[in-house]
């Protein structure tokens, strides 16, 4: 785990986007596993009929998770760009304030003060944008979390259905295992991403 205390917000949001990319890879595997299961459930007819709605749910969930993750990625990147811009504006502000302290001419100082005011306004706007992005990210993560929670319950049910599937049992158990490990991996990535988001939210709130 990274030491986030020493990292600026633009790095944490990039870390979040990086983890999300890994979550996307796992979700794609989950989507493929559920598609395989769907094929088997069609081939198995009555013996695997109970598996069909499960695989349909997982496919839909994986597809939705991919779409939401792409949205999160987009928002996280936007956040990172805004955070970098805020950092640059803060550096500029620091420099302008140092110049103001050194300036003896009142008229020149006044013209610079307008620049400083404009920068302060920009920084406030950038902060508001970051705060809105954090809230949006939080709601998107909540959405994914609920879907994964439901998926875990469904995956447990899939084992029961697999045990009734006759000659398809071995294949379906293997797929159920795949789906379970995928949903566990996604849940772990979400937890890590949420930690990053909590840190970002705290930083923005300061």
């Amino acid at each position: 785990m990274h030491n986030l205390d020493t990292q600026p917000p633009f790095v944490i949001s990039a870390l979040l986007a990086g983890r999300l990319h890994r979550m996307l890879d796992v979700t794609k595997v989950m989507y493929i596993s559920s598609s395989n299961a769907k094929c088997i459930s069609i081939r198995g007819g009555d013996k695997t009929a109970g598996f069909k709605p499960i695989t349909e749910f997982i496919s839909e969930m994986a597809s939705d998770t991919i779409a939401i993750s792409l949205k999160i990625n987009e928002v996280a990147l936007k956040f990172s760009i805004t955070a970098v811009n805020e950092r640059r504006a803060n550096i500029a502000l620091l420099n302008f304030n140092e110049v103001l302290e050194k300036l003896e001419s009142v008229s020149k100082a006044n013209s610079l003060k307008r620049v400083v005011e404009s920068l302060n306004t920009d920084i406030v706007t950038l902060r508001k944008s970051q705060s809105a992005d954090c809230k949006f990210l939080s709601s998107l993560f909540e959405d994914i979390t609920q879907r994964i929670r439901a998926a875990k319950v469904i995956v447990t049910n899939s084992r029961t259905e697999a045990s009734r599937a006759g000659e398809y049992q071995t294949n379906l158990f293997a797929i159920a295992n795949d789906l379970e490990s995928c949903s566990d991996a996604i849940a772990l990535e979400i937890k890590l991403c949420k930690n990053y988001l909590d840190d970002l939210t705290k930083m923005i709130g300061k």
Partner: protein
Amino acid sequence: MKSTIFYNGKYQWFVFGRDPDKPEKIIDTNQYMIVDGDKSFLMDPGGIEIFSSMLASVLRHTEIEHLVDIFASHQDPDIISSLGLWDEALPKARLHAPWIWEGFIRHFGLKNISYNAIPDEGASLVLNSAKLTFIPAHYLHSSGNFNVYDEQAKILMSGDIGAALEPAGASMYVDDFEEHISKMKLFHQRWMPSNAAKQDWIDRVRKLDIEYMAPQHGRIFKGEDVQNFLNWFETLDVGSAIK
């Protein structure tokens, strides 16, 4: 930002580029990274305007604490003006860059990252499995300038040599060398100042076994297109602004 893996052996070479979020009037750049276990090496990390996209793309493939070495082929803003931000993100990293540019590059902001000055004759860098050589490419175009050569992967990261000016979304690889010439000609004639330096570099690079020549703008040359490039460059008269 698009990332493509173009060598996958004991370690991996990635190219980053074709950023759709890049501001319109900024020249498109290719950034390169080697991921070698717990050590990653970022080459010509790019300008300040693409920093966010770059960092997010880099962290898809490596851990931030693994990114311990950065390279700047020369001092240009599209190469390294993001340094002040990398300096905050990677406080323990080293920057390998030409000795003559140290006092200049530090203007981009360098408080935490240490500067490893590469002498004119070049140097080497070992990650884990990857053994890299900084090959002199002085005056092509910058007066203090290096390429990165990886003997095992047979890759030459050639900086501005082989660069092409292309519209957004171009392919990552040269697929028709003759057609590609029109996109490289002006750049090499105008940006490269010295025929003597050009020949010196060609003589040096001809001795290397190169499968991929990877420039900082435009497309990557593969296989026989590397030799095609060297042959074409050898006959090209450069330094056109004073002719």
